[in-house]
């Protein structure tokens, strides 16, 4: 699993700061993104947690909509109850008080490939309309313009978790027509091919089901393509179009995301991320 908060910071540095102008002053786009992502975990049981944005979203969910959520960290922890928000996904707080601490061989073999994960929560540097993910390089692999972290466990999570959630900031550099490198399989060339290959390969995962960004919530339609389902407060469809390289599909009954509650904001600001590492 990969630390996208880290990469995203670099991306922003390159792209220049993203303004929060579209959102009311009471909360940031990052806060809205994290809250919206956390809410998507309602009713889920076992979640494989990525570092950075997925990490704070999942910890927020465990404290709000999904109190029984079992957190799995690729480092080898199951049933973690982090007493603090870990900066890294190998933090000692994910072990003390956890249900099990096991070798990575066991975690990837029996828990992940064995099919026990309900949701894999990934970040991404680039994503295409079918939810295929690049976290490896911008540019050519041999001569990269930007070298990214690589797969980590992402390519395994993408095919073995029952479903995959993605959280990332959207821009014409990240929501692209063609990703520079396919690190992790999404819906491949579309739903039909994806279902055929997942069946043929014995993958237990159905692929990506939701993408939450700083502007909106996306799900996938029957063709396996990303579909805009909800706009965050103050965000217009034009803002979305301006930050997607392809012509995005939108739901006929396009919703609007409920703003963060005071409770959600308090948890993030006072308990989970007082330093504003993720939410700034």
């Amino acid at each position, binding site marked *: 699993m990969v630390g996208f908060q880290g990469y995203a910071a670099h991306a922003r540095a390159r792209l220049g700061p993203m303004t929060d102008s579209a959102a009311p002053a009471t909360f940031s786009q990052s806060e809205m993104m994290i809250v919206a992502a956390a809410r998507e975990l309602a009713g889920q049981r076992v979640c494989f947690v990525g570092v950075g944005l997925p990490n704070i979203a999942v910890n927020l969910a465990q404290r709000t909509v999904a109190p029984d959520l079992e957190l799995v960290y690729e480092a080898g922890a199951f049933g973690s109850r982090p007493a603090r928000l870990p900066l890294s996904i*190998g933090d000692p707080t994910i072990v003390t008080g956890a249900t099990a601490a096991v070798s990575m061989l066991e975690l990837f073999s029996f828990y992940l490939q064995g099919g026990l994960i309900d949701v894999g929560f990934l970040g991404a540097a680039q994503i295409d309309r079918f939810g295929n993910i690049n976290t490896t390089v911008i540019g050519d692999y041999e001569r990269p313009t930007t070298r990214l972290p690589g797969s980590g466990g992402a390519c395994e999570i993408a095919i073995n978790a029952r479903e995959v959630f993605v959280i990332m900031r959207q821009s014409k550099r990240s929501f692209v027509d063609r990703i520079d490198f396919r690190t992790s399989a999404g819906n491949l060339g579309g739903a039909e091919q994806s279902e055929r290959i997942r069946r*043929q390969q014995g993958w237990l995962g159905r692929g990506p089901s939701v993408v939450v960004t700083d502007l909106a919530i996306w799900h996938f339609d029957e063709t396996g393509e990303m579909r805009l389902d909800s706009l965050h407060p103050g965000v217009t469809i034009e803002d979305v179009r301006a930050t997607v390289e392809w012509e995005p599909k939108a739901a006929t009954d396009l919703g609007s995301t409920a703003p963060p509650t005071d409770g959600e904001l308090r948890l993030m600001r006072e308990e989970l991320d007082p330093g504003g590492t993720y939410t700034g």
Partner: protein
Amino acid sequence: MSTSKVATMRDAVAELVRDGDTVAIEGFTHLISFAAGHEIIRQGRRDLTLARLTPDLIYDQMVAAGVARKLIFSWLGNPGVGGLGAIRRRIEAASSGGPGQPHPLEIEEYSHFGMVGRYAAGAANLPFYPLRSYFETDLPKVNPLIREIESPYGDGVVYAVPPLKPDVTIVHAQRADAAGNTHVWGLLGCQKEAAFAADRVIVVVEELVDEAVIRADPNRTIIPGLIVDAVVVEPFGAHPSYVQGAYDRDNRFYLEWDAITRDEDALQAWLREWVHDLDGRAAYVEKLGSERIAALRPGPALSGSVDYGSYQ
């Protein structure tokens, strides 16, 4: 196994780590032997192939110091913070490669499961390790060592990765006896697989204990002395990573590294100040200061004791 394998870090590295070796300093976030990495830098090893799932700051430092020729890895970054500047510059150098640029770093890339599987195959003397990953991704296109293998049961094709057998694997642990029988608790990462796969093994510990402490809890033994060549006692040797129950991860250091690693001069200055100008870990710990160290000590959280029973 009454013969002691206890050695100083200087002697262990001098004797067991050689130019051109494939070296694995393993430990996933937890138990990373920075002390060994720094000693390898001090002794000026060259042309090493460095293997690690997550190169982390230690390999960024070693690459910056010029000890490495090649990197075998699965995730390259400073978790939750950013990138690893020295490694990144050496990789991205390939794109420009001008005279002013540093020499490109050769890379061999897998996923986490692929790397763990490589160590497991090496440890088990298997010619390959099978896994379901990689199909319909670009990794096999850029790494020809990731190959398809057909199930002999007519149910399709999976991928295989080749065994990885480091010349030397270095792991940090809470405690070991003089023979190298090692107890680890907390995150186990892939240290066991990396150690069994290696030709030589160095175990660095917070505490040297009597054999009786190990034998009192045999299920806690991750690495048997049988495969250990040297036991180095180096308290706080994993800083800025951590040791479960002994000290916390020094996240402040990881956050501060982001600025240092972006600037080659700052990075080289850091290496001079914290590696070359110090003669070992004890000096490093003293330089860090007792206050910083005290702040990293956790409160207690005891496992409790279990009864193995005495069977005469």
